[in-house]
């Protein structure tokens, strides 16, 4: 069964309450043919376990790595992925779009 957004955010809450460090990554802007619309989210815990998606799978690996940083530092980050990115061939979007992803820690005061 595909995870709905409801399940993803519930998992974030459950992980946090179980004592995990948790980050929430959300697509906030898209240009061109982005694979997932604004509001799509990915939650990541400090094990590197994740649920949901911010793209069709193209950039999730990079987002998870950044999310682990955000969990450690507590400071939110804005990430941008797209063909204009130098690393396009590594973690760009094959569909040619650009997305901005906001990554924040869950449970920051």
């Amino acid at each position: 069964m595909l995870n709905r957004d409801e399940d993803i955010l519930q998992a974030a809450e459950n992980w946090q309450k179980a004592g995990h460090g948790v980050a929430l990554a959300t697509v906030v802007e898209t240009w061109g043919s982005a694979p997932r619309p604004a509001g799509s989210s990915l939650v990541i815990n400090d094990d590197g376990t994740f649920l949901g998606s911010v793209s069709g799978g193209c950039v999730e690996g990079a987002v998870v790595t950044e999310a682990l940083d955000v969990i450690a530092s507590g400071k939110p980050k804005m990430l941008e992925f797209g063909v204009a990115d130098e690393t396009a061939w590594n973690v760009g979007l094959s569909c040619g779009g650009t997305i901005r992803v906001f990554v924040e820690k869950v449970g920051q005061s």
Partner: protein
Amino acid sequence: MKLETLAQVNVERAARRPVIVITDTANGEQRLVKATDIATDPLSAELSKQLRMGKSGMIESGGKKLFLNVYAPTARLVIVGAVHISQALAPLARSLDYDVTVVDPRTAFASPERFPDVPLIAEWPDVALPPLNIDHYTAFVAVTHDPKIDDPALLHAFERDCFYIGALGSRKTHAKRAERLKAQGASDADIARIHAPIGLSIGAVSPSEIAVSIMAEITAELRLPKEGEKQTAKVQAA
């Protein structure tokens, strides 16, 4: 995101109440706006527009870039009548991301063979409908063509805040239905909520085409601004 904010989002969503989280992307500052508080919010015009479209997005306000994350409940479609049209309507609605439920007390109609993978309730409307908690994010259609089933179903829908009510039948059939419903206590305002004849006028003939016309009408009702809202938006833009 603060844990309280996340927990509140989850509570609102579980209760099928829309909620919007506003994030200042420069510093991560956040606030949550419940649907009931949108009207009095300083950003009410933007918030109500995004909510109606069910769309999240960035806006600029007071020199700040704000991300509005809209959590709208999944739209539902309650179909009263497990008839031929419903066999086309249920899968079409599901492909449009509606949660679909079919109600029909006639077990010969409400059979899993005719409706694979669709939740079916083979009960009369007075038993089947109250537990469904029909809310603002629900579209309601009565398509049995049988007053014994359609009428009590429509009377139930009048008591609820569903965003769409449609009933199958010609103008003539609908006029008779309106009389019957009024005799049972429905008001003119109740009757005016019914879309009948059901569906957009696209010359639909087959059950599948009628299903398309019904879903097109439901989509319009869900997404197009209401008359009052259009005026407010214009005044604010001026």
